[in-house]
């Protein structure tokens, strides 16, 4: 009997692999899709417009595979590699014809032609070049980095001090405060937007980094206080007591002993704070009006509007933002797990 547990038969192993591969395909499919869309040189989402599927009865499994390949692999890249790059979809060509048909006496004809020829020069990477040259994309990323970095650093500092007070001292109202912190997780989001907007406005911080950073760093507080408090309680109290006996004050015991010991938990809390601030858009959309102060979330949402969707630009922007953040979070998830085990072993 025990052998049946430890050794798994080959067919069963194959089934497991098959199921997991299917799950992997489903999990990664949208990621392949944005990469594919971002390399199309039109704003259409799909490739099926290009090669039509054969009518019922004539379709084979081969066509089916081709359909999927079209959806996932950007054909512009294949064309570019094979060297048979024929640029420009039909729409742009018609623009060009119109441009040549314009009256030669028109003083702006040359300008029109120049712009038309510029339009036809789209390549498979045009979405990316457009993104950086025609839009404030770098500025958006810069704004996001600035806002989320400072918000999470400030938030972590404030929550570390508060968590220290919660884990090491007794004071009246402690249970109530902890209950309140847990309760804030249940407050529906839109409830807070209007008063927070009023507070920030009355501090004269509307439409600036400062207002958004203050609002976000406080938003982060309850969750990181709970995480850090949980970790601080696993660090033995005797270490600080020894330092106190040697003449350390409570403040320097906190900064010199507890904080260095709890770097894993601080890193985890920072990571979570950064993640949530990085992809936050509701607060930003209410507090910020200036186009040059927008974080990337609002910028990308602008591309994906309903009536003038620029899916190509949106996909290119998504790839530029999603890939680094995904790599960062995958890389750090190892440390999250190791930080976990450290805490639980000590507890």
């Amino acid at each position: 009997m025990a052998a049946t547990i430890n050794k798994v038969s080959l067919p069963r192993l194959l089934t497991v692999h098959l199921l997991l591969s299917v799950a992997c395909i489903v999990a990664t499919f949208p990621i392949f899709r944005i990469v594919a869309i971002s390399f199309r040189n039109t704003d259409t989402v799909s490739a099926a417009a290009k090669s039509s599927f054969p009518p019922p009865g004539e379709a084979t499994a081969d066509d089916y595979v081709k359909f999927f390949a079209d959806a996932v692999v950007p054909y512009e890249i294949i064309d570019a590699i094979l060297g048979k790059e024929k640029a420009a979809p039909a729409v742009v060509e018609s623009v060009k014809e119109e441009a040549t048909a314009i009256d030669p006496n028109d003083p702006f004809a040359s300008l029109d032609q120049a712009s038309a020829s510029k339009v036809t020069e789209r390549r498979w990477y045009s979405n990316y070049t457009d993104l950086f040259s025609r839009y404030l994309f770098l500025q958006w990323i810069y704004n996001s980095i600035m806002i989320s970095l400072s918000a999470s650093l400030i938030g972590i500092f404030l929550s570390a001090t508060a968590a220290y007070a919660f884990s090491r001292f007794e004071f009246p109202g402690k249970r109530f405060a902890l209950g309140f912190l847990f309760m804030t997780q249940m407050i529906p989001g839109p409830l807070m937007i209007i008063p927070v907007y009023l507070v920030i406005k009355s501090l004269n911080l509307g439409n600036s980094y400062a207002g958004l950073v203050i609002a976000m760093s406080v938003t982060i507080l309850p969750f990181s206080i709970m995480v850090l408090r949980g970790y601080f309680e696993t660090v033995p109290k005797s270490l600080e007591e020894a330092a106190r006996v040697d003449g350390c004050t409570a403040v320097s015991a906190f900064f010199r002993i507890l904080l260095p010991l709890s770097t894993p938990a601080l890193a985890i809390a920072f990571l979570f704070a950064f993640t949530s601030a990085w992809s936050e858009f509701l607060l930003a959309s209410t507090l910020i009006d200036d186009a040059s102060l927008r974080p990337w979330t609002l910028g990308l949402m602008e591309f994906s509007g309903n009536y003038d969707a620029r899916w190509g630009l949106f996909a290119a922007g998504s790839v530029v933002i999603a890939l680094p953040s995904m790599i960062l979070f995958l890389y750090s998830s190892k440390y999250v797990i190791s930080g976990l085990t450290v805490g639980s072993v000590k507890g």
Partner: protein
Amino acid sequence: MNLSVMPAIIELLKLGGILLLMLGFAFAYLLVNYRVWNSKLYLLSKVLLGLSLGFFLKAAGASWLTAGFGLAVPVAIGLYFRYMLKGRYRTPAYFLAPAILGIILLFLYPLLYQFFLSFHDLSLKTFADWVREGSAPLAGSFGLENYFEVFRDRATGQSFVVVLGRTLLWTFINLVFHLGLGLALAMLLNTPGMRGVGIYRTILTLPWVMPQVIAVLVWRSDFNESVGFINQFINVTNQLISFQVGDNLIQPLTWIGFQPRQWFVDPTALFMAACIVNIWLGVPFMMINSLGALQSIPKSVYEAASIDGARAWQRFYHVTLPLLKPVMVPAAMLGAIWTFNNLNVIYLMTDGGRYEGADILVTDLFKQSFTYYRYGFAAAYSFVIFAILCVFTYLQTRLTAEGKPIPDKKAESAAAQNQLTQKPNLSSTRV
């Protein structure tokens, strides 16, 4: 490149200055109070301070209520320092001061403000009065009109019961699929003697590490009726699996509902699409959680069970599930709250509330306050939602605690583990 650095640096300096000022104020306030609480003139000076603050507020045009607060707060603080604290708890107070300042400013004050607003009739119609006179009229004769209005059928949307039912359905469907699929994937990954577990796990966590906004917007582009991938895929599959019988074309898959839909126009389809997207987003979190729990179950337990003659499903039901419970129950509870309060997915899928018919309570609330500008009503509405959630959580903790008492230590460490492994994608909705 429009990378203008200078204004940003000035902004950041300004921010640093403001923060230092606020923190310094909080610390200095506590310091002064702790120094002088024992002097004879302490209470007298507090009363004088309160009086002057009250008169100042009244002179500046505030209402009697605000002026009264201005009078009462310093006096209350003075009494508290003098007779309750007596110089105790000095260190924790210093440590807590900055966080409490922030929480009062951006959590407690907004809550109280919204509570105040929920009894008043503040909408676009009365907004001018509010600006002019400083106070909106009470809603109804007792001020409770907004709360009654919540449960009434509204002209500007669906009735409360329908939206509540949809929210519960949304929470239930998502939770079931998150738990089921997450557990299934974790058990597949936990197959002994399998290679490539690390690669599979990394790939399967990708939906979790992808920024949520991007993920939802990509799905939305694929659900597009004419150019999206989903409809094309359904069409192509139906073409492939079809039979010509006489003049009729038979597509058997359409009989089970597998057919192209107008995903954003048909409310049922929109709700389905939102569910699919949220399930895709949420499965990895449950998978990681249950994988960690599964790996922590010692093999000897299974061996003992199989020696006792337990079959595979018996081992699953009697060994795996009970041992998973302490980890999965808190995770499921948090997941339920988050799904209930999940603004992002439905907000983005309906393009900011443009498409009707798939609203859950939170997005309906958002619509009431930012599309119809019914601020007072929205405040009352949000407190009703808040109360529902509180009851929901209370019942859940009661029900899950009733079964059998989980050892404190274990539950605590499981809870801590959950707090650490989860991703606070909620915080953007939490605000």
